[in-house]
């Protein structure tokens, strides 16, 4: 499994990561090596084995559908990079 230059660009885009052009060859090599390693999984005889999502196969616990958290809006906004009037600020999305 060898990734092309464009594969790494596409994955980085999907992952929302800025990767500079001169970093790409190193990622090409290491990602290809990792994919070769995980490719060994193909050799495992899984037959009718069910996929395992939880080590103890317990079901998701539910709780009553009631408000349990206090309003902490100000505390959360205080650690935001940019906020104003109780809102998070981001670059303009709609022209």
């Amino acid at each position, binding site marked *: 499994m060898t990734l092309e230059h464009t594969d*790494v660009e596409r*994955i*980085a*885009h*999907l*992952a*929302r*990561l*800025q*990767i500079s052009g001169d970093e790409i060859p190193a*990622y090409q090599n*290491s*990602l290809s*090596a*990792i*994919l070769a*390693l*995980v*490719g*060994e*999984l*193909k*050799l*495992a005889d*899984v037959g009718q*084995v*069910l*996929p*395992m*999502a*939880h*080590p*103890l196969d*317990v079901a*998701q*616990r539910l*709780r009553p559908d009631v408000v349990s958290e206090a309003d*902490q809006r100000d*505390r*959360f906004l*205080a*650690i*935001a*990079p*940019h906020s104003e009037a109780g809102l*998070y600020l*981001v*670059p*303009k*999305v709609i022209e």
Partner: protein
Amino acid sequence: MTNYHTATVAELSHALHSKKVSSVELTRHFLDRIAAHDRRLNSFITVTTEQALAAAAEADRRIAAGQAGPLTGIPLAQKDIFCTEGVRTSCASRMLDNFIAPYDATTVQRLNAAGMVMLGKTNMDEFAMGSSNETSYYGPVRNPWDLDRVPGGSSGGSAAAVAARLAPIATGTDTGGSIRQPAALCGLTGLKPTYGLVSRYGMIAFASSLDQAGPIAQSAEDAALLLQALAGFDPRDSTSLDRHLPDYRAALDNSDNTSPLVGVRIGVPQEYFGDGLSKGVHDAIAAAIAAYRKLGAETVDITLPNTRYAVPAYYVVAPAECSSNLSRFDGVRFGHRCQDAVDLMDLYKRSRGEGFGAEVKRRIMVGTYVLSAGYYDAYYLQAQKVRRLISDDFRRVFDGQQVDVILGPTAPTTAFRLNDKTSDPLAMYLSDIYTIAVNLAGLPALSMPVRPVEGLPVGLQLIGNYFSEAQLLNVAHQYQRVTTWHRQIPQAYAK
């Protein structure tokens, strides 16, 4: 000043309760040691001097009032992955260099409630991704046994801090070996509990189906004391398990019986003694097996045939979950944000590109790839099936062959040199070859020091069945009652 740092937590607890020392004195002693030694070791990212002294004074009041528990007044180092209200929680990443959590992790709450005194937050691999503590934004940690070597990772700062006795005990987290491998490389006793035993609320997530917090300690007895305070049901963690917990310390057998392990069956898996295991580590483990036979245990040869698939399965499951978990770092709500973003896509990409280091980006990209359209069945679904094969291997041994504990090496070698493996991610991944299967199966396991090789610690791993922490700790404790490897301190830090 008395050498408080050569004492275990159990001994310090006794000294505090018999008023031979105050928590403020102890706390000052360890803060002084951090100031004297940590410039070189780099085991702490943040030292919380003022909060520690205030917490120590409060602990002394509780002890005086007779309202203290066994851990009240004991200084502690917290891995910088646990959110601490009002104190920076960086996860050793530039992304969170400016992050001050608005709340405490459940584990932090529980240890505070027990009266423990946090000395500071320890260095680690960035977002717990690494096995040498070299991916930290704050620089590598050095191993107190040899400053040219790594302490292991990802909980390398916690392990180095306890090994150098800058703290008597520390917390760690273990996703693929991140408590046990650094404990092994630094000569400590580290326990990864059963998945679901310790709350993950407020512990910055790496791979949610694998992550567990646990103690990094000087002895099995100390690990038992800290586990008692860490473990317990938490409604804020949807995978937390609600069950009755034993008294872990009381489960340690301190009788005069010279064959305390009669009736205990120890399984020795052939797959853990193959190519790649260094001769020195092999021989040290073999000597420990002989010691266990003298203690009365029966050893049986076992096989875990799907062990070879553990590392490949892990490097699908862990990156997949990491790519999902780390998508929350978007430059909008908290953490690093790039300058002058032209649009939202630019904001996301540059904030994340600048905020994450190379290994974190690599794992996010592996995870993104294996979860992308057309590849899910071949990678993620296959890995989840293989995960069950690995889990079934253990089940056959514990339930089918009535084995109580599985014994083997924790890591294939002693601590390696700084920069030895940084250019080869796969070589780094293979240093967790014996620890990863345990996380995939969700089992508890510990590492403890046995006979060193050329002055470097060797870790022995004990793996137990689900919720068998009390038995695991007792099996380790029996070895530690007849040996002194766990009491060894690197010479430069013994005084």
